[in-house]
């Protein structure tokens, strides 16, 4: 196991307890490098905060981990077995589900249709609306999500409600790993609280390991066990939440910005 452990992170990795491990993940879009060398691990039942500024590669990494796009190089281990995700469906079948920043909800479809999007209950050739409607309602009640009706088109819901639908949908299939991309983006304090409560509830139930991508540190520190900072396409910090603070994270982000600025000025001179 030590042979595959990236140097410098050895003391943080506990191979037995890792549900997900990434080694040397890189991603290029043509000439543009989004991820240079990402090493990351997620423990069973853990909530990991993945922080970083815009363009640091957070969403790129998430889209690799959920099977939306392949990495250019690197290896992914799921429960200590190496995996290559062929598609979103494939990753989902292995127990990884994601809530994207743009939510991937369909405004024209109802709440329950969205909850079952691409995993509809069918008795060929028809979808079974009454079963999906009932299960969606039960599931949302169970999670404490308040909605006017599961028959409402998602376009008529507020941002927080849409986010709640998207999160509830991902938890629906009992994933082992849940990836949340900016779950609090563009949300008011009250709406954000709905989502944070939802995450805390999942954490207490302990059946799912979660990676939260965010750039709002204060909120994320509340729910995360551990924080990873991604800068310039690599992980630059890996600490338990208790050992770090919003100030340290901010300093790190600002330091990177200063360094880049100085470098540019040097080049211009």
């Amino acid at each position, binding site marked *: 196991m030590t042979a595959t452990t990236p140097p410098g992170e050895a003391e943080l990795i506990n191979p037995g307890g890792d549900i997900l491990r990434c080694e040397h993940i890189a991603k290029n879009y043509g000439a543009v490098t989004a991820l240079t060398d990402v090493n990351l691990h997620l423990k069973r039942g853990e909530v990991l905060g993945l922080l970083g500024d815009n363009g640091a590669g957070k969403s790129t990494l998430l889209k690799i981990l959920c099977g939306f796009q392949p990495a250019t190089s690197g290896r992914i281990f799921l429960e200590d077995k190496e995996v290559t995700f062929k598609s979103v469906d494939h990753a989902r079948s292995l127990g990884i589900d994601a809530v*994207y920043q743009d*939510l991937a909800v369909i405004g024209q479809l109802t709440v329950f249709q969205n909850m079952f*999007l691409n995993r509809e209950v069918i008795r060929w*050739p028809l979808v079974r609306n009454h079963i999906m409607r009932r299960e969606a309602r039960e599931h949302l009640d169970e999670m404490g999500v308040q909605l006017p009706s599961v028959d409402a088109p998602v376009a008529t819901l507020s941002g927080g409600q849409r986010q709640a639908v998207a999160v509830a949908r991902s938890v629906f299939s009992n994933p082992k790993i849940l990836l949340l991309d900016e779950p609090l983006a563009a949300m008011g304090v009250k709406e954000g609280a709905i989502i944070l409560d939802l995450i805390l509830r999942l954490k207490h139930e302990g059946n799912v390991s979660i990676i939260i991508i965010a750039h709002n540190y204060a909120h994320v520190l509340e729910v995360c066990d551990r924080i990873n900072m991604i800068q310039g396409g690599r992980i630059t910090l890996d600490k338990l939440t208790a050992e770090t603070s919003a100030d340290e994270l901010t300093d790190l982000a600002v330091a990177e910005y200063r360094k880049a600025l100085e470098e540019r000025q040097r080049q211009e001179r």
Partner: protein
Amino acid sequence: MLMRVLRVLGRQREATVFIIAVALFVYFLIDKGSNFTSKSNQVTLWSDFTTPIIIIALGEVFLLICGEIDLSVGFVVGFAPFLMHYLIDFYGFPGLLALFFALLFGVLVGWINGFFTVTIGVPSFITTLGTGFVLLGLIDTTSHDEPAAIPAQVMGIGKWIQYYAWAPIIWAVALAAVFHIVLTRTRWGLHTVSVGGNLLGAREAGIGVGRIKYGNFMITGLLGAFVGLQTMYYTNNIAPTAGSYTPMFYAVTAAVIGGTAMLGGVGTILGAFFGAVVLGILLDGFPLIGVSADPLNIIFGGAILVSMVANVQLTRLRERGQR
């Protein structure tokens, strides 16, 4: 009060078009009486005018909902019967097999439209403009601009497709019922709405976006070929002039009047069905009251504009009302 009425109408878009269709029907009924209600005129109205619009509109609705359009389908209408005629009369194919290949040709054209639009990435407006011209050229070149007679081998089956007076409209209603169920109650329909409503979201949910678009192009092509056969039996010959933009334009008009949005995600089979009935009644009724077909297009154009404005306004009202 007015707001409430409009809001109810907004939810019941199909009901609005249905009421317009009934009103037009009653108008011609009162004005022309038995001239309008006679069996021969009703057959003309439903089987000859309305049916082709409905059937092609079924395909266009699916395409428009998933964010695409097919401008070429009118030329599939024209070429499919010629292909059947060539296969039978020049290559000795059995009648039924030739019919089958004529329908398959529609599917093939749909696949080609899908290939250029989805795989190559050309907007479908341009793709199908191109394939439409190619088909028009094929029709005119291979037929030498001459009509052909229907091969004797396939005359018998014409009874099922067209010769029995009500056969076409029965086909149209049955197909519309099937397509309505497919759109609202199957994965294919829900995914079609998803692709048009939120393309990236649909992809992220793992929906095969390309597959949906390919499929809807192929369905539209198949329906075009079927209408081509119907038209052949109706006119009782195979005419190069049968291929034109008109069937497609009428179908898209019916879809738009029925509440289908050009930007995707929104549309119903029921709306397009009643939209086609409105067009059919106008096409049939106007000559009856002594108005030529010439000013009819002014009304069609007006109807498109009015219904598009209504669409935008009603959507706005609906969103305000439910928030």
